[in-house]
């Protein structure tokens, strides 16, 4: 039984107000379920309330960020929660992603007989978990948040329960996700065990805490550095594996194409954007925190992963005709570029901000593309083929131009924001002296033009082919969708020419 003082200190550290946005998201999610259960006929209003609620939380977070004065990291819950300026921005990022995902889900569920409110509910819980994940200061909260969002994704991936593809994707994601969680947990357990070993120098009192673990790994005793301890090496590599699985880096990308294809389009978007961003931010937390002293071990490992990720991610989509698989596999290539930025961050201080810039631009472009995909999806959501995009520019100029701009930005074509993002990462990699990886990345960009070009060409050039199927009825595009598409396209174009707004947002200037 802890002493009175300890108890009081622990309780005093529980600053619930610091996590109010996450709590409110959870309450919103619960309220949606309850309201829908009692008033199923009021579903449109309930869904609207879900949007408004998220928007309100977003506004509040933005207000808090802009009025906050710059300062040290804020630590709550006895070190479990660490809030920094960057994690505050990531919370805003995730709520924004959630809004887009909600909107995509409403478009997706428009003509389908699946429960709506439940989808939003799970999506909100996943968002709250992402927000907790990026603030985690020890492995406990880290793992709980990661598992919560992964379990949420299991549901979201298999949500189209009458679709064989979706069920297959759900099963694959469940098995592979469970496997990676197990590996991650094993790694955490090893680190916990070795860092609590009283025979080693600088034994940690709370080995799960990132700061204490970092201090332990960085310590050097008579028998050698802790960083060279076999259990530290094994544990850190296993933890890293779990995180790399989330971002879809090779060789942990095996689930990507099938899951991206089978999952409903809004889920695919959330996997592509939020999951990737969360994974990279967590990677940053780990590499710059507890694993800082392991640079000489992790750097070559990550460099190897980066190289194969870049190669695989750019070659694998070449033969694809299914656009969801293209998004998934090219997402692997983007993970490679982001990893390159992470590696550069070891040497170049601003490189991680370039990674954030890339993530931001990637998110904006991806959501533009996914919005278009959600509108063009046939009844079987997994069968989205390039041929469905033939003559899109003529059929619906707004959707067509949004798609072209989004894809152009993903491909890194100037003058779109994606180009600037790639250049920033390349410059950072060059300053860090990663010449070989840079060469691979640049070749990758050249190859990637091919598959993005094929998709764009279908939208721009091919005349409408009247094959009598695949939803040739007029596209229903609501006014909010139009506003969203125009805004996303505009940010992508303007951000490519005048970058000041975006660079300031990610702390580059």
């Amino acid at each position, binding site marked *: 039984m802890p002493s009175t003082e300890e108890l009081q200190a622990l309780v005093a550290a529980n600053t619930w107000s610091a996590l109010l946005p996450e709590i409110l998201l959870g309450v919103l999610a619960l309220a949606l379920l309850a309201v829908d259960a009692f008033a199923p006929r009021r579903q449109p209003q309930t869904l609207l309330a879900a949007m408004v609620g998220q928007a309100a939380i977003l506004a509040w977070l933005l207000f808090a960020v802009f009025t906050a004065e710059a300062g040290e990291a804020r630590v709550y819950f006895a070190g479990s929660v660490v809030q920094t300026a960057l994690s505050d921005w990531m919370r805003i990022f995730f709520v924004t992603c959630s809004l887009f995902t909600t909107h995509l889900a409403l478009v997706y569920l428009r003509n389908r007989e699946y429960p709506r409110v439940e989808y939003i509910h799970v999506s909100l819980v996943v968002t709250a978990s992402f927000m907790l994940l990026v603030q985690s200061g020890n492995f406990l909260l880290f793992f709980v948040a990661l598992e919560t969002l992964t379990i949420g994704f299991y549901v979201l991936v298999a949500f189209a329960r009458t679709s064989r593809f979706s069920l297959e994707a759900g099963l694959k994601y469940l098995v592979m996700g469970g496997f990676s969680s197990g590996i991650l947990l094993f790694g955490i357990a090893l680190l916990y065990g070795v860092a609590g070993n009283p025979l080693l120098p600088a034994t940690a009192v709370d080995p799960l805490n990132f700061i204490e673990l970092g201090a332990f790994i960085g310590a050097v005793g008579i028998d050698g550095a802790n960083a060279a301890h076999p259990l530290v090496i094994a544990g850190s590599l296993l933890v890293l594996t779990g995180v790399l699985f989330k971002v879809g880096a090779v060789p942990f990308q095996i689930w990507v194409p099938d899951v991206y294809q089978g999952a409903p389009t809004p889920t695919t978007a959330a996997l592509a954007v939020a999951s990737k961003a969360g994974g990279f931010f967590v990677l940053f937390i780990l590499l710059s925190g507890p694993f800082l002293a392991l640079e000489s071990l992790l750097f070559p490992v990550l460099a190897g992963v980066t190289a194969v990720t870049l190669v695989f991610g750019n070659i694998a989509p070449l033969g694809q005709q299914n656009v969801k698989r293209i998004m998934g596999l090219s997402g692997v290539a983007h993970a490679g570029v982001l990893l390159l930025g992470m590696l550069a961050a070891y040497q170049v201080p601003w490189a991680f901000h370039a990674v954030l810039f890339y993530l931001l631009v990637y998110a904006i472009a991806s959501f533009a593309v996914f919005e278009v995909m959600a509108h063009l999806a046939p009844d079987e959501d997994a069968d989205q083929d390039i041929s469905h995009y033939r003559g899109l520019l003529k059929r619906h100029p707004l959707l067509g131009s949004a798609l072209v701009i989004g894809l152009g930005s993903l491909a890194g074509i100037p003058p779109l924001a994606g180009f600037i993002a790639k*250049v920033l990462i390349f*410059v950072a990699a060059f300053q860090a002296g990663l010449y070989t990886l840079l060469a691979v990345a*640049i070749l990758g960009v050249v190859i990637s*033009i091919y598959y993005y070009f094929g998709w764009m060409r279908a939208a721009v050039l091919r005349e409408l082919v009247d094959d009598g199927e695949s939803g040739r009825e007029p596209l229903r595009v609501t006014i909010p969708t139009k506003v969203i598409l125009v805004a996303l396209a505009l940010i992508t174009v303007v951000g490519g020419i005048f970058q000041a707004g975006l660079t300031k947002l990610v702390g580059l*200037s």
Partner: protein
Amino acid sequence: MMSSIAHLALFDGVAELFRAMDAASPRAHTSVLLLGIFGPLAFALALAISGKLEDRAVKIAGFLGFLLPALSGLWLWIAYLSLGVEGGYAFLINASTGLDFLGVSLFLGLNGISLPLYVMSGIVGLAAGIYAIQSGVERLRLYIILHLIMLGGLMGLFASIDLFFFFFFHEFALIPTFLLIAIWGRQGRRAVALELTIYLTLGAMLTLAGLIALAVLSGAGSFNLIALRVALMETGWQNAVYGLLLIGMGILVSLFPFHSWAPRGYATAPAPTAMLHAGVLKKFGLYGLIQIAVPLLPEGAMAWNPLLLWLALGNILIIGLITLAQRDLKLMLGNASVMHMGYAFLGIFAFSAAGIGGAVLMMVAHGLSVALLFLLADSIETRCGTTDMRDLGGLGNQAPVLMAFFVAAIMASIGLPGFANFWGELAIFTALWASASPWVIAPTVAGIVISAIYGLRAVARIFFGESATEFRGGDLRGAEKAAALILLLSLFFVGFWPRSMSDSIDAAVADSFPPAATFAPVAALDD
């Protein structure tokens, strides 16, 4: 150095006016520069977002968009000569876009090397624009918009002092090229567009890597060309970075083993696109080498020069022979334009003020003449339905004006005196003679013979003899004539008065290169 312009009493009054304007507001001429770059882009944007428009309104707006860069170019040319900047940078403007932490900013201005190309770009843009407007293709509005974007990018690229924006504007011009070929190209356009896209993206990416390397390794902490001038790099790095730039830009200029995209690309592209690409955009690589790579990496340039020599000779001789074998007029022109790039590379090889200066003048002249040739070849195609020279013939009787223009253009591209091309080639030969390997002149002169053979043979096949095709549409129409005349007059103008350009080129080049064989004797010939 006294400007030859000063001898002209007529010019004095105008120069006084321009100086007074500059004195009144230092931004006066800079705003003309901005107008030349962002004018066409603004017109493109306006056309893109405006709703239903009458055809006539689209054409007028397009014409104004194409006209602005040409006017801006002429205005700045006179202003530059009036201000007596002697080759240095003028009309500077530096604006931040949010990448200052990298040392990147939108830094615009012109010096003695970029000014002639800026002017040439505006003139070719106007001619290509007029030709595009009168062409009557489907989806004319998009056609004009894409050409306007291309032109805006071209003007911006020559006016960029910042390496990043230099590349950025190049891509700005390159992307519409792909679309234009893919949508409006001739037969086989899809494969050609894809090949071009991947090949040129590779070149562009290598160039980008080289430019990043240049900025990072020089330690200047800036992408600004003026700041980079002072920072010198170690020899080992110089070699590597120059190699990257040479190959990257070489692909974009169609240097010998990397040229295979060019002939088919130009043959397939719609005429205004080919005019802008072959005439102006392709000069990006040469301009980059002359303005950036060679002065900043002189040791790297020396190390790569022996290889460059052989590649350039490959351009002249091997491509020259391939050109001889062409039966399609557009393919022949595409190959010929690849071949002539060899001379410009030889100018760089000579590594002297005369050689480099000659290369710049040659780029201007080549841009004008090749644009004229592509324009005329396309008007032949619209009239006869083919560019296969075996089927063509006897056009001289039916279209004498077309024939006159074509003969003049061929003469110009061979390099006859009186045309701008002559001065460029002469300066390059002089520089080669003074260089360490004067023997190079022999194969180079053989190249001229080759170009005379295929040029004159083309004239003979197209305009004389019997025709196998039906001829429709009569002689050149007014708009076509106007476009062709703009180019031809410019060729004559520079041909008869090269010092209007060569003085400022000479002054700019003299800063960076040994005056082994100066450029001045060549330019003095017209005094």
